[in-house]
């Protein structure tokens, strides 16, 4: 491409700036290693920063993530590339890797941007906001969300009409449409893969009617409705803005389901649904919440107690998987399910349905490694080559995995896994000097 690609050197490349990648980067930086953190989104913090509160303590997710994220951002040993991807990673030898990093233009000078949002006000465009999971609109010049880090504007060039309104109002003149895609060559000694997970797309289960019936939302959308930076400022059903008073949760949407190609349990849906149910009971005291489940997987520390607490609060738990959902004229939804305890097929009307969508592997990273194979497990998560003794090890020596890139897990487990990845990276790097 260019003859003279910019070349940099770091000790460790961390791919993915979510909570697991962040934890790894931070641990390594504290021990004095130079870390390059590459995040494909314009803001770090991964999915956790978008959540409402976290189970089973009900701490607000932002209160835990934001300080961690700012600690990462401030650490002088960590360089962060947002809007960037690792395009190719080549193993050159022991503790020698070369990576090509592709950095997409943000069209904003991040250092200069003050986050004043004047560009956002000026922008005439309004498109669906992916950070609010499509519940509301955003501008083409925008700050991803209130607590984003860096809290700087981005231009969504796909939807930009290039009117230049943003440029004209920007006080520090930091908008720059001359930015172009750049590639960097980075020399590193080790790689931590923390590429996280994707959520199951419920359009793949047409009998649930997601997408067609507007009052069916995913759990992530509900997470946004409950979060402090929520789109509606209260809980509304997206079909018509009614305040719901009878909400159903459909567990195992896209998990433990071979018919959609995902046979494994997503490990978190039971608990986040129970958490949301508790939060909803707080937000809408008159609302009835019903959770349709197969087995409640409340296995972690304090989880079963949390489940019991939800039952005591009056959340209704019905054993049975929803078979299909139909819509009534008033926008209410009729769930057809077998009540397993009664052994009878039943129909129940709810004014809003939340599909508790499962965790799928975020694919693609294994193709980035070009001369050695980063092996995947049968479910397309990154294979842990020595899962019992060294859970962070992968099929390539010197490449470690952190967080949900290796399988579904909750936040505490992700953080521990991030800690494990940094520990193994440390000993891999130190072995050289011993």
């Amino acid at each position, binding site marked *: 491409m260019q003859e003279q690609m910019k070349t940099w050197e770091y000790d460790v490349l961390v791919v993915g700036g979510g909570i697991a990648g962040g934890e790894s980067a931070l641990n390594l930086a*504290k021990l004095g290693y130079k870390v390059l953190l590459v995040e494909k989104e314009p803001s770090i913090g991964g999915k956790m920063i978008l959540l409402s509160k976290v189970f089973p303590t009900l701490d607000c997710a932002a209160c835990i993530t*934001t300080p961690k994220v700012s600690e990462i951002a401030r650490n002088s040993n960590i360089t962060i590339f947002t809007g960037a991807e690792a395009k190719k990673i080549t193993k050159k030898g022991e503790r020698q890797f070369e990576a090509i990093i592709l950095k997409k233009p943000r069209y904003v000078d991040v250092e200069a941007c003050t986050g004043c949002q004047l560009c956002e006000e000026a922008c005439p465009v309004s498109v669906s906001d992916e950070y609010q999971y499509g519940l509301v609109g955003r501008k083409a010049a925008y700050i991803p969300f209130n607590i984003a880090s860096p809290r700087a504007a981005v231009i969504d060039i796909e939807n930009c009409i290039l009117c230049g309104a943003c440029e004209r109002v920007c006080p520090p003149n930091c908008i720059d449409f001359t930015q172009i895609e750049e590639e960097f060559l980075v020399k590193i000694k080790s790689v931590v893969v923390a590429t996280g997970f994707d959520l199951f797309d419920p359009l793949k289960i047409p009998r649930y009617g997601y997408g067609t019936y507007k009052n069916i939302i995913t759990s992530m959308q509900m997470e946004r409705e409950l979060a402090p930076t929520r789109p509606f400022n209260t809980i509304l059903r997206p079909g018509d803005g009614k305040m719901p008073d009878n909400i159903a949760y459909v567990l195992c949407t896209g998990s433990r389901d071979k018919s959609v190609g995902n046979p494994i349990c997503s490990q978190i849906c039971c608990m986040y649904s129970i958490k949301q149910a508790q939060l909803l009971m707080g937000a809408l005291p008159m609302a009835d919440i019903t959770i349709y489940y197969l087995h409640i997987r409340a296995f972690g*520390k304090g*989880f*079963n107690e949390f489940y019991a607490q939800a039952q005591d609060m009056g959340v209704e738990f019905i054993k049975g998987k929803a078979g299909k959902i139909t819509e009534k004229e008033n926008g209410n939804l009729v769930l057809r399910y077998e009540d397993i305890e*009664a*052994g009878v097929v039943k129909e129940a009307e709810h004014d809003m349905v939340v599909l508790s969508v499962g965790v799928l592997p975020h694919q693609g990273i294994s193709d980035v490694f070009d001369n050695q194979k980063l092996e995947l497990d049968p479910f397309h998560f990154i294979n*842990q080559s020595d899962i019992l003794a060294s859970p962070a090890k992968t099929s390539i020596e010197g490449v470690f995995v952190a967080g949900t890139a290796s399988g579904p897990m909750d936040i505490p487990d992700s953080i521990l896994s991030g*800690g494990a990845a940094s*520990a193994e990276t440390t000993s891999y790097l130190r072995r050289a000097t011993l």
Partner: protein
Amino acid sequence: MKQKIGVYICHCGGNISDYVDVEKVRQSIEHDEGVSLAKTTMFACADSNQKEMVEDIENRKLDGVVVASCSPKLHLLTFRAVVERAGLNKYNYVHANIREQVSWAHSDNKEGATEKAIQIVKAAIAKVRYAEALEPIKVKSTKAVAVIGAGVAGMRAAIELAEAGSEVFLIEREFFVGGRVSQWDDLCITEETGKELITRLYDEVMKHKHVTLFTGAEVIENSGSVGNFNLKVQITPRHFKLHCNSGELQKAIDVCPVEVPDEFNFNITKRKAIFHNYPSEYPQLPAIDLKNCTRCGECEKVCSNIDFSQKTENLNIKVGSILLATGFDPYEPKKGEFAYGEIDNVVTFPQFKRIVHYCDDKLTYNGKEIKHIAYIYCVGSRQVDGENKYCSRYCCTANIHTAITVKKKYKNIHNYHFNRGIRTYGKAEIWYDESSRLGDIYLQSFEHDPPIIEKQGDRTIVKIKDVLTTDKELEVVADLVVLVTGMEPRKDNSISNLLKVPKGRDKFFNEIHMKLRPVETVIDGVTISGASQGPKNIMESMNSALAAATKSFELVDSGELELEPTVAKVNEKTCEWCGKCEEACPYSAFEKIEKDGKFMAKVNSAVCKGCGMCLPVCPVNALELIGLTDQEVESMIDALIPTI
């Protein structure tokens, strides 16, 4: 007295502002003495607000800062760091807790909560007015870590610490390493056996010259604190000089007249007083269990390496940090709980694993062949009446995996799983699927309606009202009933008592914060890992062991630590040495000195822990705790009372 205090009141999303009128709080305090800036903020801890705080401090030359937000356990350190970044001494920061102790505690009373929040913020302002700039006390940190427990987690952590470059003392109470995993055959996920995994880890441990392994060893005393723990380790001798050759050893075992239940096999077999748990166990040196040995001397006659002259030794070690990997105990059912101890073919899951270990081509127990096995889940977990409300996490998967093994290993096995809702989370779901496909039958009941086990003639019958069959009453004739027992905290509390490690509601060791500091405890320098913290499978234990190793290593790596300067100080004018403070101090931090012709007390600030036990005993009130002076406390009290 400070004149330029900045106050930030956090909405915490809605966690605070839903119940506390934060704007009213702000208005109530903005004209307080010394307050020059009062703001509300959506998230005080967010990066953007932190930046703003730094700017405010720099531009407005603030000399004191208060943030009213969540509990200081969460973010005291965050904001101290912010203040420090702005060039202000971090002890000029005071944290006010208006979430856990106001908005959440009084979510039923919004006006009351707002009122309380105002007083609390006022008290924090009062405190910050008198706050002093302090410098942290720097102490040397010993670059060594004590790892307590040489199970998989402990060994893994030891390897990691040694590789990173720390000295490691690996202390195991038993004579052999490996903990619970050595009692297992094939492990879930990899089919590697427990022994193989232990061997692998043990070899790795022994490769590192920086790891010192003590077996039969217990920590019996602890003094010192983070950076400099002084541990006294008591080492029980094994009474073997060297390994006798295996022929001799076998003879020695044969001649030993003592037989005791073998705990390694969960008492389903017996062992001698001279023993090893299994051939080629690590360390490869048998031991004599002196508690049961009669000193008959028979063994000495056949094995020349036996040495009864060995004595219990005490060793002092110095470490900068302690990593606990003490593991768990399997739940021991009470007599009569699911007929345990009453019907002879009712065994626990760990016992069952050992039975399977000893049966090769035919599964037998008590001489009878076993075809139909009933597994009763959640024994000792998710208890309705008992204390263990928690789920033990690993049992569903471990048991199903074992059931599959049994089904494949022996012919014509029928497995019946009496469960309360299978919790094979994550990828373990595939075992549940596989076992079903192999023909295992799952029967479910809820907590309040457990299965019943009874004897009818010579047959053992398990009955259940099966939720999956509309509460139909079903029964199975079982040749063996396996109680799938959960994990419990170690019954032996000695180490946690010694170190004062706090425990959670489930009685396992408790971390500071599940997400922010998941392997650290409130006792500085003590980290926790593995199943000592709560039920975990091997992979999860390894992750936490590695994470704990990282945190322990961070403490000892640089060789220096900064400690809180909140120690006791003596008012030299009023002190007339009486010695009461010296008596009260648990750390011997006081010494008697002579100054200007007068005897008085002096505090050794590197030793003082700042507990304040000395404060009330001083008859002349010459002692104060830095950061908690009379002036600070009394002005806080004054501020907490609304002036009418």
